[in-house]
């Protein structure tokens, strides 16, 4: 059973449909016991970092997820959910994240050449940086769908894939039982479904 953490941000329809499609039992929940009892946790998210962390804290799930990660449970963050795994973010101020991975979330603005549009929207190729079980069903160079304006930086410790958009943007990260995708696997066609399947097979 995979627990998809519901803390009031974003639309979980596609994520749940894609898990169902690959035959994975999943439950959308904000119930601490259900999350504790699940074999794996997916932390989704869209919107602003500070707002999402606050909602996660208000629902009492912030420290629970930290503890679950320390206890060795497999956790995947998606998009903003991946960003929240890091120590902090500089999106509209400075906000503390879950601190499960080393690194920080920084804006593309001011870093990319001006001719690059922000957000980074569209299908971009994954450049593998490290071997990972998450990629066992896909190939280096496969395309996935991105929508984001901020990216994880100083995260060499967990970096497993990048996507080229003027610079090499962090696309996927993994450190022991904690992993994340900046892109949307639930919107990335067959390739995305294969990444979700690989996560469900982990551990």
């Amino acid at each position, binding site marked *: 059973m995979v627990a998809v953490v519901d803390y009031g941000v974003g*639309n979980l*329809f596609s994520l749940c*449909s894609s898990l169902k*499609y690959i035959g994975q039992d999943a439950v959308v929940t904000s119930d601490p016991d259900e999350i504790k009892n699940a074999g794996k946790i997916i932390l989704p998210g869209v919107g602003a970092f500070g707002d999402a962390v606050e909602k996660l804290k208000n629902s009492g799930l912030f420290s629970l997820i930290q503890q679950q990660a320390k206890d060795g449970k497999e956790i995947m963050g998606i998009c903003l959910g991946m960003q929240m795994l890091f120590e902090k973010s500089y999106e509209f101020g400075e906000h503390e994240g879950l601190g499960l991975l080393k690194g920080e979330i920084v804006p593309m603005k001011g870093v990319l050449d001006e001719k690059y*549009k922000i957000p980074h*929207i569209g299908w971009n190729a994954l450049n593998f940086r490290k071997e990972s079980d998450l990629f066992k069903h896909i190939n280096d160079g496969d*395309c996935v769908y991105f929508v984001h304006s901020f990216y994880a930086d100083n995260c060499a410790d967990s970096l497993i894939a990048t996507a*080229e958009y003027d610079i090499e943007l962090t696309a996927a990260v993994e450190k022991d039982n904690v992993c994340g995708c900046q892109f949307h696997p639930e*919107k990335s066609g067959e390739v995305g*479904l294969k990444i979700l399947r690989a996560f469900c097979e982990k551990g």
Partner: protein
Amino acid sequence: MITKRIIPCLDVKDGRVVKGVNFQGLSDVSSPVELAKYYSDNGADELVFYDITASFEGRKLFTDILTKVAETIFIPLTVGGGINTVDDFERVLNCGADKVSVNSGAIKDPSLVPRAAEKYGSQCVVLSADIKRVGGEFRVFAKGGREDTGMEAISWVKRCVENGAGEVVVNSIDTDGVKKGFDIEMLRTVQDAVNVPVIASGGAGKTDDFVELFKQLPDLDAGLAASVFHFGEIKINELKKALKENDIPVRL
């Protein structure tokens, strides 16, 4: 490297795709689910569903069918047609749409774009603009291109982007249906005015029209078309191979 998106657009009325299509192997050529799957399996990077239903019942059928599509197809889905309020955004996003395209609704109520962007984020809000040359300037048209609003198009598009539209579909009425290629001049003018993705629509008749589009405008993000895909005049997977042969980055 980010790839150029190829986007088929399907008109849906009372839960069925209109303008019959002609594909071998499809048992029901007007089933949105079957067609969406066909396009998704054959290289479409995104799908646009355009609801041309007028009745309440038809709208209900549309949202039912959208839910079924979103349960089956895992690429971005954009919905347009009949989007006049923030509640309309809510209705289609809850059925699994990723983006919502507004056209006449934004003209009638210019506060729609900023309110929707604030609630759902700019990445959800697509401005679709029907543009035509009138007396030496680009004008915005409403009601499916039938009504001249009198508004100058470039300033309209700029204003919507400043208010939170995250992408812009430019449909040239001047080239739409003519099948002699996209409106490069109009697209260039819009593209130079905004810093969000621009999607070209109107005028595609053959594969070379897309090659020409991305060669002339290498910063343009996507090409959208309807009947040339539905009638099989252009096959998306062959189109993408042709783009690749011309060094235009695509997802294969």
